[in-house]
């Protein structure tokens, strides 16, 4: 960086206006803070936080950054669990929060939105017209962020597909500042080359997505079913049966392990049997169809050994039951453990039950810091993502926290390699780079590095993420 901080902020103000550049300490710290259990350190802070209004302003910022070799870290909503928004080399944090336009075009049967709009807002507006957003990440996450990592949150992959299947086109600003349009405005997507697909899932290293156009999906009718099992292993077996015996796939499915269930039931005032719980949301063309599919889930659960299973007809009870899963972030607190870190494992279907059992007992028989944590198992059963939340005392020193984080991430890598997992819900960059390299080999990793070099010769954009820096 060959300009000083003052020159930097002055120039940025010239591009986006005085009100949209922030250099105060408490602005910068919020844009550097992530859900890592330890504090932001001086080295993590950006020099300036900039909020451009559109692709043109973003383009100007990136051209300036290239000219002066200033790192630019993109920020959508900061809700990622991969910590890609944490600046590793100071510079500019570029927020897309002002890109909040939304056009729902029923004639064309697509909607187009600014990358910074929150999924919750889009869900709400689409819902008013009877449409459904096939991205059910947390409501505060940005659409651009979700598309950039190609995640759909908790939904089952095989129902609506991932963003790559539903995005018709993108507006993207390349790291060198050029603005490009990709994809289609008709409902027929291109066979062969479609540059949108290069950016979807590229985790922000090849360009900044500024606009997203997605197909409109009619809002399905839904019905929920719940099943209670003695162990999570039985739930794993039920999921295998779900696919192999061609049951109607639920659009969303969650499970909660024994230990977490106990706390969740208590928090929600539910008097359910001890053990693990699976909950599914089935869909249909009409309510009757959805209920019929949910009834199939009840049959599946019972055949797989559930002690009890039924359709959740009462909306209040349904809210409480889903709440048992939503309550995840409070686990550990009952023991005064406020520090936490979660992992994700995506086992192949035949080994799902085995992985669930291993994760249930993951802290046992170890000699490392993980043995000193309290682990809670939960996750998704439509498309399998097993999450394990490790809770530990927040009184631990930063050094000890960093050690336990390293150990947990290493454990995640080992488990993912063992069970043949992938980027799952959260993606790869930056902290899963070692996992990617081991899983796919150095040739594959080098291809990504070379692509990055091609798009971003000065390594401006999200510097450190491909390198695996956290």
């Amino acid at each position, binding site marked *: 960086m060959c300009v000083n901080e003052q020159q930097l902020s002055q120039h940025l103000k010239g591009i986006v206006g005085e*009100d949209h550049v922030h250099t105060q300490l408490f602005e910068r710290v*919020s844009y550097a803070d992530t859900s890592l259990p330890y*504090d932001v350190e001086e080295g993590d802070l950006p020099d300036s936080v900039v*909020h451009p209004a559109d692709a043109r302003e973003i383009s100007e910022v990136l051209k300036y950054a290239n000219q002066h070799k200033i790192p630019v870290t993109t920020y959508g909503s900061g809700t990622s669990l991969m910590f890609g928004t944490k600046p590793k080399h100071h510079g500019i944090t570029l927020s897309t*929060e*002002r890109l*909040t336009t939304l056009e729902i075009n029923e004639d064309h049967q697509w909607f187009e939105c600014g990358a*910074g709009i*929150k999924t919750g807002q889009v869900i709400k507006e689409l819902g008013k017209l009877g449409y459904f957003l096939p991205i059910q990440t947390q409501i505060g996450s940005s659409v651009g962020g979700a598309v950039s990592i190609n995640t759909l949150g908790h939904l089952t992959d095989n129902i609506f597909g991932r963003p790559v299947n539903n995005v018709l086109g993108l507006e993207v600003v390349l790291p060198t500042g050029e603005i490009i349009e990709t994809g289609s405005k008709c409902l027929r997507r291109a066979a062969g080359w479609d540059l949108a697909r290069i950016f979807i899932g590229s985790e922000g290293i090849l360009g900044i997505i500024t606009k997203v156009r997605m197909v409109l999906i009619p809002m399905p009718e839904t019905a929920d079913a719940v099943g209670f099992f003695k162990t999570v292993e039985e739930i794993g077996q039920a999921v295998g049966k779900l696919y192999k015996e061609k049951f109607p796939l639920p659009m969303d499915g969650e499970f909660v392990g024994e230990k977490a269930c106990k706390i969740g039931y208590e928090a929600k005032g539910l008097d359910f049997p001890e053990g693990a719980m699976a909950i599914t949301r089935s869909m249909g063309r009409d309510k009757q169809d959805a209920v019929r599919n949910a009834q199939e889930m009840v049959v599946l659960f019972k055949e797989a050994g559930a002690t009890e299973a039924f359709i959740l007809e009462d909306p209040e009870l349904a809210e409480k039951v889903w709440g048992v899963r939503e309550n995840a*972030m409070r686990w550990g607190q009952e023991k005064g453990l406020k520090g936490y870190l979660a992992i994700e494992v995506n086992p192949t279907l035949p080994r799902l039950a085995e992985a669930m059992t291993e994760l249930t007992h993951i802290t046992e028989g170890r000699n490392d810091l993980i043995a000193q944590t309290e682990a809670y198992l939960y996750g998704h059963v439509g498309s399998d993502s097993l999450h394990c939340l490790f809770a530990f005392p927040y009184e631990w020193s930063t050094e000890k926290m960093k050690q336990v984080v390293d150990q947990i991430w290493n454990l995640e890598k080992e488990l993912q390699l063992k069970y043949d997992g992938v980027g799952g819900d959260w993606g790869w960059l930056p902290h899963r780079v070692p996992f990617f390299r081991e899983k796919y080999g150095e040739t594959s990793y080098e291809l990504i590095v070379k692509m990055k070099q091609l798009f971003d010769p000065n390594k401006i954009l999200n510097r450190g993420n491909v390198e695996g820096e956290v």
Partner: protein
Amino acid sequence: MEEAPFDEDFDKYLNEALITCEKCHFCNTVCPVLDTRVTQGPFGINRAIYYGLQWNEFPEELRNLVYSCTTCNKCVDMCKKVSRALPLVEIFEKAREYFLVEKMVGPMPEQVAALKNMHVRGNPWGSPSHERTKWAEGLDIPFASKENQVVVLYFVGCASSYDSQGQKIAKNLSKILKKAGVKFGILENEVCSGHEAKRMGETGLFAYLSEANSEMFKDAGIHHIVTGDPHSLYSFTREYPEQENGLKVQHFSQFLNELIDKGKLKLSKKVNKTVTYHDPCYLGRHSEIFEEPRKLIQEIPGVTLVEMENTRADSDCCGMGGGRMWMEPPQGLLSSQAIAERRVQQALATGAEILVTACPFCNITLNDAVKSLEQEDSIKVMDITELVAMSL
């Protein structure tokens, strides 16, 4: 055991509370103050306090963020529902107290005069104390005292005592109570409930004002208070020590419903209007009184009640709570007018002719927003008491 120094207590409380934050950002999704920057919402405010304490840095920008919260409590509900149940509003208020008492960086400069006025004249606007009951002149409302005991004390509150729009609430409620034959009175020397002083972090002043009011309640033998000010209601029921002594405090919507149920209050005149109801934060989310105002509105013959997009516990704030009535957020933070305009836009979307509320602060703010949006011909803002009085 030796008592821990004040400073240390605060530090410990704030640190422990803030370290619990899971940093999920759910709180930001419901914040009325949040415009486009993550820093403007509860996530940003709580992170700023946390790092302020860690780094011992308490500049103006931190104070500005902390004082920008309207204390509407929507984030608290959200955190309770899906995350770690942080008492965010309590944390922000503690931080304000810490800044004011310990670090001398609070309150906001414009709030100083309001606090001074509360102390000297018993109301934030600095109006003369002897004019507090001027609205009641000629209405034959007795002053409650030891000698002149009343069944119900009407606690008027500052806005309804001094503000011209607020005074309409006081006059209409008095008219309704008289019509129902309630033996009620007001305090001759009522002072501010102190609610807003506490919100601004001036807990010492709150204690002083609450003691003054409590003493008057005691002297006049008061057992039952009815108020039209949800802010005072909240302090009386949650923050005044009298609550422990069984003092019954009600919002007028609760009391008037009881009078209707007992047949003492009859609403007979038709008011053929479509109305929508705005839940004031300190009546709704903070005091969990959602249904009584709606029931009262629906008791009025001819009235059709339609709901806004965000209603009951999900209602949006008018923007004036948490001490913001006496400050304008610095540049870069969302103005109270912008927050109120968002709410009025929701009301306009319902097609209602009247936007009804049950709080003098909301009344003032939403009225101003209707004017700034130049929508006076489309919608009127009214307190429920005005609507009820039309039906007497």
